[in-house]
């Protein structure tokens, strides 16, 4: 389908104010003609009206006139198109997200536009209001993009015609059409104004670039013109800097960047540590060996003055970030870790300098210097931070593994050829080829070929799945045996893997309620510590032994240094990060911190029978006839009636009939009666097909056949009665086989102390039979779909913390009512946003794993919180000197520095222990 041609010309009429003479006319006309896109401009001096024609925005015209010092208002936009309620525009050349913002803003500012929303992946803008098509396209073109009006979204779905193609250098050189565009690049390595000039020059030198301007503060450059992003990046690289498109980083790149940034910061911290400790350790050893750290003679005074200078140097070189951070946060009425460290080390240094410079002000006993404390604390805290970064890196292993599943390139068919392109360039409806041993790059539907695909990395399901024509394949899974050609159905951020990564990331950054208290405390922590430090100093000054000043300074410094809000703040997020990641590895997606916490507290678990305990694929296992009709005739009638129903049992009947090659008849007056069955008219006969309640409702006598039905039910089959014209003709037994590992998984749940209840719409006898098979003793049977949520409430009223497991589609109200809703998905095509916890594979072991991992995580959080609270609660009074009256012990600030540096490391390391958690599902399955 070709896009409609759009008139590109628009005429504007502008009312000019402030033009007093004829010479103004020439000036205004000239200025308007100089506006890019204007083809003609004239001004009528008598009416003070100017007209301008061309592909241009009214804003540009107004700006041009205002720049001359005149006033102007738009009178008429002479539209060449009729106004409509909304217009769909297809944008070309919008390469990055920032383009979206720009386009939306420019359109929203147009007169008559009420709203403009861009669907970035489709490059479609929906504009509502009365602005004409030509005004809209003109506004977009004025920004440097291409725009065409399309009749509906489908027009853009034919890639070869209108979907934007990534522009390559070869296309430019071969003369392929390239739209004029604006792109923002992020520049690294630029430090000064001369770099800016150099970068701008190198960018404008790229063929096709109209203008390039760099913003040093934001490290970004805006480039307008006709050029590929690659060419721009190369040009910047040639100038000695690094550039990349803004806002377009893939997850893998983000992780790499983060690692690189962490690595650089790690090295910087280590360097800082070495500098500080190489002064601190010798000083401390000197003090320990000689016991002489006081200022009594002039020689000592001079010597210590030099050391004081060196310490200041260490503070500037290695501790700068603490002091800058402390000052900045102080100015914004905030206080953080930096504040405490800066105050503590600063106090020690200032006091020491006072001793050195004016010893006579202090009593002889108090003339002690603490330069070693300042240097040691700075060194130790830098060391602690460095080790913490290392440990933190390990907490994101799981997400890195998920991100690592993404393929880097895809082999797609373009113009009759198969070419390898970066995965970001794969577009919807691309035909993608994967060979054996390759990763499937994006989600899709198989067009050709057959292969087995290993989906274990996403679902935890160890067995490869056979994929053939029309089956769906999922990006990130491994194609094992054959070659597949498939059509891309979800690309970029829409693929299952990208959504899973997004969800895991969000969950990792969310906090369970247990962390709230720590957050509250952390918010007030630092100022409180400052107050405690002052109080402690006051107490020493008032009641302490001589030298009171020295004791006061030491206790205040030690209190400031030992207090560690970081350990408190880190306790919860670090464990959640590891726990949620661990769960994802086991194929369990936990939606957020609350779900994690609630899952750990579950006392009762309701399992839906069909599709959860059983495979959810019922089969016809017995047909007992009672009249003249034979089995085939019964199956044909039942299937004809059921073809309109979506119930899994109905599907099994229809499937059985079609497998036997039976021709179905049309059904009239079809009606589904919830929880009972269906009625309808087939071949002029009134049919009833359903359970005993349906028969009783319609007065069909089933008394004689009840024992047969009971026998079927006791074997775990669901008996369904078929009545023709009010007379019972057959009993059809349908059974849904129990999943192979349901029994073992339920045993695990029971062993972990959880009350397991089965819920089903099936009759009580069948339900009991299935329950007995899997070891469940409590059953809610014959529950109508709308009653499922009530059963959840019933258990909640008994004081249970209730988990509900279902397929997420039919059980939505019950899942929502439960304290934790578990959606069990077979395969990966599950609505991962719908439940608190999503089990990506069908096995119930995922459920046991989910509960086990959430319990382990919560236990870990509690250990962390307990440790962090105890550390602070015990450490701060000891630092203040409460033990001194009893034992004469007053903590050294250096010890406090070491304790503080390693307290947050301890928290992170403890969280890392969670990495050792092993999902047991696979082990059980192996038994």
């Amino acid at each position: 389908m070709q896009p409609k041609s759009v008139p590109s010309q628009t005429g504007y009429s502008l009312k000019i104010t402030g033009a007093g003479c004829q010479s103004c006319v020439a000036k205004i006309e000239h200025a308007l003609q100089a506006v890019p896109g204007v083809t003609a401009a004239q001004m009528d001096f008598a009416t003070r009206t100017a007209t301008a024609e061309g592909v241009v925005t009214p804003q540009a015209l107004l700006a041009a006139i205002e720049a001359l010092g005149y006033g102007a208002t738009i009178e008429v936009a002479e539209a060449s198109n009729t106004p409509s309620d909304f217009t769909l525009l297809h944008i070309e050349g919008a390469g990055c997200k920032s383009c979206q913002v720009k386009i939306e803003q420019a359109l929203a500012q147009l007169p008559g536009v009420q709203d403009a929303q861009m669907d970035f992946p489709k490059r479609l803008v929906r504009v509502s209001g009365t602005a004409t098509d030509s005004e809209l396209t003109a506004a977009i073109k004025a920004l440097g993009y291409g725009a065409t009006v399309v009749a509906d979204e489908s027009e853009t779905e034919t890639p070869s015609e209108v979907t934007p193609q990534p522009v390559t250098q070869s296309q430019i050189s071969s003369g392929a059409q390239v739209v004029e565009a604006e792109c923002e690049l992020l520049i690294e390595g630029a430090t000064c104004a001369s770099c800016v000039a150099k970068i701008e020059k190198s960018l404008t030198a790229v063929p096709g670039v109209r203008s390039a301007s760099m913003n040093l503060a934001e490290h970004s450059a805006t480039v307008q013109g006709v050029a590929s992003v690659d060419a721009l990046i190369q040009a910047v690289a040639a100038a000695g800097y690094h550039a990349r498109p803004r806002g377009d980083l893939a997850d893998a790149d983000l992780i790499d960047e983060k690692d690189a940034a962490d690595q650089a910061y790690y090295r910087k911290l280590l360097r800082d540590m070495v500098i500080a400790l190489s002064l601190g350790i010798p000083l401390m050893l000197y003090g320990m060996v000689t016991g002489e750290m006081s200022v009594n003679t002039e020689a000592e005074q001079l010597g210590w003055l030099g050391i004081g200078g060196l310490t200041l140097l260490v503070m500037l070189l290695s501790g700068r970030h603490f002091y800058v951070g402390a000052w900045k946060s102080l100015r914004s009425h905030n206080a953080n870790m930096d504040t405490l460290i800066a105050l503590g080390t600063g106090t020690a240094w200032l006091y020491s300098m006072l001793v050195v410079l004016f010893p006579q002000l202090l009593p002889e006993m108090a003339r002690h210097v603490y330069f070693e404390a300042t240097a040691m604390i700075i060194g130790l805290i830098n060391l602690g931070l460095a080790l913490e970064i290392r440990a933190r890196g390990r907490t994101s292993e799981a997400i890195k593994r998920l991100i690592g599943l993404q393929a880097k390139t895809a082999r797609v068919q373009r113009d009759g050829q198969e070419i390898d392109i970066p995965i970001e360039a794969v577009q919807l409806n691309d035909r993608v080829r994967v060979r054996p041993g390759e990763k499937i790059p994006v989600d899709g539907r198989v067009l050709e070929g057959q292969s087995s695909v290993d989906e274990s990395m996403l679902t935890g399901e160890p067995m490869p799945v056979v994929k053939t024509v029309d089956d769906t394949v999922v990006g990130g899974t491994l194609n094992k045996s054959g070659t597949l050609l498939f059509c891309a159905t979800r690309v970029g951020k829409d693929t299952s893997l990208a959504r899973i990564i997004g969800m895991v990331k969000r969950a990792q950054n969310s906090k369970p309620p247990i962390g709230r208290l720590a957050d509250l405390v952390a918010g007030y922590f630092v100022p409180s510590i400052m107050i405690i430090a002052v109080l402690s100093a006051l107490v020493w000054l008032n009641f302490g032994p001589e030298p009171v000043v020295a004791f006061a300074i030491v206790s205040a410094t030690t209190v400031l240094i030992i207090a560690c809000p970081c350990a408190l703040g880190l306790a919860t997020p670090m464990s959640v990060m590891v726990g949620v990641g661990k769960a994802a590895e086991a194929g369990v997606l936990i939606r957020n911190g609350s779900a994690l916490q609630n899952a750990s507290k579950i006392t009762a678990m309701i399992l839906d029978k069909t599709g959860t305990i059983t495979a959810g694929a019922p089969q016809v296992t017995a047909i007992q006839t009672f009249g003249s009709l034979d089995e085939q005739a019964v199956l044909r009638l039942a299937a004809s009636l059921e073809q309109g129903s979506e119930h899994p049992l109905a599907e099994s009947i229809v499937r059985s009939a079609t497998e036997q090659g039976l021709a179905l008849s049309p059904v009239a007056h079809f009606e589904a009666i919830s929880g009972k069955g269906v009625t309808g008219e087939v071949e002029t006969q009134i049919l009833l097909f359903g359970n005993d309640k349906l028969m009783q409702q319609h007065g069909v006598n089933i008394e004689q056949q009840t024992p047969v039905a009971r026998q079927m039910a006791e074997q775990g089959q669901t008996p369904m009665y078929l009545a023709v014209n009010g007379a019972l003709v057959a009993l059809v037994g349908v059974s849904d086989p129990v999943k192979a590992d349901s029994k073992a998984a339920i045993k695990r749940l029971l062993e972990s102390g959880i009350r397991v209840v089965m819920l089903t719409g099936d009759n009580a006898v069948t339900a009991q039979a299935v329950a007995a098979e899997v070891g469940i003793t409590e059953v809610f049977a014959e529950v109508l779909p709308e009653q499922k949520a009530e059963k959840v409430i019933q258990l909640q009223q008994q004081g249970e913390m209730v988990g509900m497991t279902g397929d997420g589609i039919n059980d939505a109200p019950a899942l929502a009512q439960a304290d934790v809703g578990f959606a069990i998905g077979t395969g990966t095509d599950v609505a991962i946003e719908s439940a608190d916890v999503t089990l990506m594979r069908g096995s119930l072991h995922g459920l046991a794993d989910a509960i086990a991992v959430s319990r382990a995580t919560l236990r870990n959080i509690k250990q962390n919180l307990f440790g962090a609270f105890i550390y602070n609660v015990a450490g701060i009074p000891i630092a203040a000197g409460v033990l001194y009256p009893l034992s004469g012990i007053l903590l050294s600030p250096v010890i406090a520095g070491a304790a503080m540096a390693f307290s947050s490391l301890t928290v992170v390391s403890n969280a890392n222990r969670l990495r050792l958690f092993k999902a047991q599902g696979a082990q059980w399955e192996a038994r």
Partner: protein
Amino acid sequence: MMLWVNVAGVLLIALIIWWFWMYKGGAGSASVSGPVTITVVDGVYQPSHIQLPANTETRLLFLRKDPSPCASVVVFDQLDLSQELPLNEPVEIALKPLPPGRYSFACQMHMYQGELIVEAAAQG
């Protein structure tokens, strides 16, 4: 002498309480049309107090220049929203229209703190 020291100490405590807890500072820049840029640098969000009009969609642009891993995530507790902030990579957060009120944001450890002040009255 000790009296004065004690008075100074008490005054210092009062100052700490006032400076960190009682002081309600003026809000930072408010902008409706474009995104509000918040730089994460040297242990603080700049600006840390951001005035926004109520019931209006807003975009916040976070630019993290602070390499400390603490700064790597910003959390809006009340909005159930969190966002990773890669170093030197502007990240845009789109906020739905909010009812008037104060919404705090912080790093994971609540050491870096900021606040969105959403006000009903339309700002000029």
